[in-house]
């Protein structure tokens, strides 16, 4: 069996572990065990990936990865230990923001080194399909980042928890959405790095960052946990889009599972709070009773 095949099988094990983990969190008897299974699944996913890229693991590369794990893991551990229990929802929101930003960076990396990911065609161009997938990862990653950050700040009381209604917000949102769709269409036909460099993706990222803010800022603070759950779903979809770009089984499967379960969880949370799912999510689009 090739390295790729073995990795795919190990990723399949990871996906099953993550399903058990999420399932475990559904009931009190199995919740703690579920969390442990999730940790084990994540460790296996990372180890499998190191195995997958073992031929490229020279000293410098290993240093970059190990450095990232030590710095990121350390910061995450300190934040998670020090935060007061009352601040947990905003911590989850902030962690989610960083996860979204990570997808954005990976999509940019795939754009800058397409040959390394097998994305470079015979004529030295990137296929429109891959460019669309990268654009979507950048788009969803950026919305997740700025939206989650606003949600975390609202939960923390750093900015007003009340709905902040910008004048002409429907027009603004519509213009941004049209701009993003246009940019994705241009990117898809740009052949990749040869024409336009990475600037098109950067523009998509900038517009999406603003979009994340304008979508979340009109929603009231009491609905923020639902919004965080919804944005958590987005980060799953962003990971799945990356999975298509990188032909990575773990990202496609786990991204889809997290994407769907996050969306359903936000629906369930709305029902538990006796809120209308549509009016919460549509708050950013103009639901009048949001907040």
């Amino acid at each position, binding site marked *: 069996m090739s390295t790729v095949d073995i990795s795919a099988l190990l990723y399949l094990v990871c*996906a099953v572990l993550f399903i058990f983990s*999420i399932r475990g*969190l559904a*009931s*009190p*008897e199995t919740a*703690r065990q579920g*969390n442990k299974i999730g940790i084990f*699944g*994540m460790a296996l996913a990372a180890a499998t*990936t190191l195995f*997958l*890229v073992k031929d490229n693991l020279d000293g410098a*590369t290993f240093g*970059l*990865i190990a*450095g*990232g794990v030590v710095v*990121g*893991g*350390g910061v*995450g*551990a300190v934040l*998670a*230990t020090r935060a007061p*229990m009352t601040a*947990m929802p905003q*911590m989850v929101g902030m*962690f989610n923001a*960083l996860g979204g*930003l*990570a997808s954005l*960076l*990976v999509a*940019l*990396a795939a754009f*800058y*080194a397409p*040959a*390394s990911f097998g994305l470079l065609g015979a004529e030295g161009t990137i296929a429109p399909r891959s460019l669309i997938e990268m654009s979507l990862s950048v788009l969803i990653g950026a919305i997740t980042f700025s939206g989650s950050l606003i949600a975390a700040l609202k939960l923390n009381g750093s900015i007003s928890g009340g709905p902040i209604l910008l004048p002409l917000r429907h027009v603004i949102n519509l213009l941004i959405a049209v701009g993003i769709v246009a940019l994705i269409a241009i990117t898809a036909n740009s052949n990749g*790095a040869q024409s336009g460099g990475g600037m098109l993706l950067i523009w998509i990222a900038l517009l999406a960052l603003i979009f994340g803010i304008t979508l979340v800022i009109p929603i009231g603070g009491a609905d923020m*946990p639902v919004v*965080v*759950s919804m944005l958590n779903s987005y*980060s*799953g979809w962003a990971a799945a889009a990356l999975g*298509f770009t990188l*032909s*990575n089984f773990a*990202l*496609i*499967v*786990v991204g*889809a*599972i*997290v994407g*769907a*379960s996050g969306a359903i*969880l936000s629906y369930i949370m709305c029902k*538990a709070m006796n809120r209308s799912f549509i009016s919460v999510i549509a708050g950013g689009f103009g639901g009048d009773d949001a907040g």
Partner: protein
Amino acid sequence: TINPLIFRLAVFVLAAFIGYYVVWAVTPALHTPLMSVTNAISAVVVVGAIVAAAASALGSPDPDIVQKVWTAKWLGAGAVALACVNIFGGFMVTNRMLAMYKKKERPAPTEAASPSAQNK
């Protein structure tokens, strides 16, 4: 043979259905920990980050390509760090929430109230 893209699409759609069905039975008190653990799991993007950090110029001597590959590697390393904040923070925060939940629920009601506990 199936077009790989169609195969991936099939896997993607079926996985989304698993995600759809797996969370319906959640106890209301566990909403936030469940959200927290799925958030930690969404940091599986660390897989893509490691792949990006391990990008290679594939022996190309072209300085432009080499420079772009290094850009990709640093973007990947940054993504590894961000995803690891999410992973470590996410699972540890979940653990803290569950520890609190357990202490609260320990005195009697869980054992007496749930028939499922007796079945096990």
